């Protein structure tokens, strides 16, 4: 199962981004083999509809869960129809390393 995390950097020490649509990097974490992939977000500087474009990117990587600090208004119905689970973690300073540790429960 693949899980996408919105990150603001491309290292394990970077923290959870406050915004899903405009985060700097997506971390695609595979729970089965522990593989990790950092994808730079091409929609970072888009004026509008960054969220739906990011959803498309994450869905194309076949992620079934997304961890973020916040989700925009346009995203929720999209994710609902794609059956992707949203996980809202209200700890913006949390490091990607810690989140992955939690996911490996």
């Amino acid at each position, binding site marked *: 199962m693949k899980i996408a995390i919105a990150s603001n950097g491309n290292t394990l020490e970077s923290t959870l981004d406050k915004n899903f649509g405009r985060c700097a990097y997506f971390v695609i974490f595979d729970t089965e083999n522990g593989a990790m992939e950092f994808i730079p977000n091409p929609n970072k500087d888009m004026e509008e509809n960054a969220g739906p474009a990011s959803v498309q990117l994450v869905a194309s990587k076949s992620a079934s869960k997304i961890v973020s600090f916040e989700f925009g208004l346009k995203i929720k119905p999209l994710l*609902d129809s794609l059956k992707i689970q949203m996980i809202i973690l*209200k700890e913006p300073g949390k490091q990607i390393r810690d989140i992955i540790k*939690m996911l490996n429960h």
Partner: protein
Amino acid sequence: MSPRIKTIRKVLNPPVIKGFKPYGPESNKQDLEPVNLLFEEYEAIRLSDYDMLNHHQSSVMMGVSRPTFTRIYASALQKIARAFVEGRQIAINGGKVYFDSDWYHCNNCKCNFNNPQRNEEIKACPLCGSGQIESFNATNIAGTYHSKNFEDLCICPSCGFEQEHQPGNPCNQMICPECKNFMKRKGTPGAKGPKTKIL
């Protein structure tokens, strides 16, 4: 002047079927337009006649005002009656709605998450795997906020007896158990005691 913007109605689950077809020898003879029942009208029927909620409770569930809910419900009944009498098909689609999924809160890692697979029950937190999860909804939070932030007391103006206010029972109709006088809401003029802020 442009018309007022419609509030988006919240619908819990889409209906299991897409519509209804009449049967019998007469049903296929005339080619009638099907009646289009909107999702919000289906939800109104489901809430008030299947779940047996009253219009006020149902309107809260759908995120609209009580009068709006009653209008949606009335229009649903009208459409169904028309389909029955004229032998038309009912097609359930359209309407300004969104489908809401259930939200949960994990007490271990303090995260919130939703359940996109409606038919599967969630037993553990997807993030930390703990079982300390609870269903999360705005009314729960509103309830705790309410009870924490202001004390609601009824006070007897003549002897000073205080008791907790029961929502739905006006204080000025309550009788003080000590001196048999009418009570008042604490903080209103004429009532003793320090003035409390009433939100």
